[in-house]
């Protein structure tokens, strides 16, 4: 569950809702607002600090790091996980690497085509 909280906070930082160097809610305040336990938020803050997204000053609360640099790293990691999952399913279905690649290309073409039609509309 703390992973979901981390994700939410990263998104808030990524879209600039929580600006760099800005103070963020205390663990307890955020727990009450999100209706999750204090310990879950505490865990999320600890991990975010380790990743350099936020900085916690003892007794003062936490602020967003001045250079969180997170969106590329965040999405890169997610992409890697999804790709592994794709390969795993491919092996399960007995697909050759070539077949898997062409399936990926086909999926890409479909998505891009549908996005283009939407933009035209």
């Amino acid at each position, binding site marked *: 569950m*703390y992973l979901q909280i981390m994700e939410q906070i990263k998104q808030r930082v990524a879209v600039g809702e929580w600006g760099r160097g800005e103070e963020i809610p205390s663990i307890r305040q955020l727990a*009450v607002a999100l209706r*999750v*336990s*204090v*310990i*879950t938020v505490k865990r999320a803050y600890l991990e975010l600090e380790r990743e350099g997204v936020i900085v916690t000053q003892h007794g003062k609360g936490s602020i967003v790091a001045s250079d969180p640099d997170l969106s590329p790293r965040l999405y890169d990691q997610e992409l890697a996980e999804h790709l592994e999952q794709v390969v795993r399913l491919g092996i399960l279905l007995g697909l050759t690497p070539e077949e898997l690649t062409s399936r990926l290309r086909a999926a890409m073409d479909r998505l891009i085509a549908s996005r283009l039609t939407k933009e035209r509309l």
Partner: protein
Amino acid sequence: MKDLSVHFAGVSKKYPHFALENINLELPTGSIMGFIGANGAGKSTTIRILMGLVHQDQGAVHVLGHAMPAEQVAAKLDIGFVSEDMRLYKSATIAWHMEFIRSIYPRWDQSYAESLLQRFDLKPQQKVKGLSHGQRVKAALLLALARRPRLLVLDEPTTGLDPVARHEVLGELMAVLADEERTILFSSHNTQDVEQISDQITFIDRGRIIDSDDKEIFLDRWRRLRLVLPPEATLPRLPGIVQVSGSDRLPVLTTNSFESAMVSACHDMGATVQAVDSMTLEEIFVASVQGGRERQTV
């Protein structure tokens, strides 16, 4: 020393057909403990001992610094207790109950009580006998919350509530925790509610505490490993295996003391680790109850 709101040390209580054995429990001030057990596991007996309603045969119980049951009058001024079987006066209104509680407890907070009436969508002039189950639970909770107790003890607060009422109740419980001096102990067999709002989790089964820990640590150390074994291979021996299911070649191991080193240990023994799945609190609860019972019967 940690600041504990509730402390049980070696507490036992024997009944002809049921016994609580050697209960040890620590609840730090400012946290929420979810107390999970099947029906008849001993949740309510433990809570009644905590409240001084049942006297333990052995062991020491301290609640908010008061020894129980000897100092229960002083302790109860600061404990708000809501249980399923607590009855309100049927022919009296909610407003009458509010006035009644206010006359007893000096710390009653009328404006908080009124805001709770609104948030819980209750009408003060309504008589208790006309209330639905959900409204009764919310009314009882309102009467306990508005006293601003330092410790809230809730026996199955969300059982039988519809999703909207459950959401309201859980939300109010969280709001209580905004003040870090306040502590909540609530029992439930709804693991979803417990997983959402608890800091501490305690499992009880057949009158014994089978596990108790910080929630995040709890969730972290339970994992399900799905392995593929080469033919003729035997299952690797790993620490903390609670259950083995699946087939010979495709075993599924449930462990309560997972570490990432386990995965490489499996590889070293020739097994392929297909997946390491985290588990929901419900799955963990069922696995630990079944694991504990198997060990007892062996």
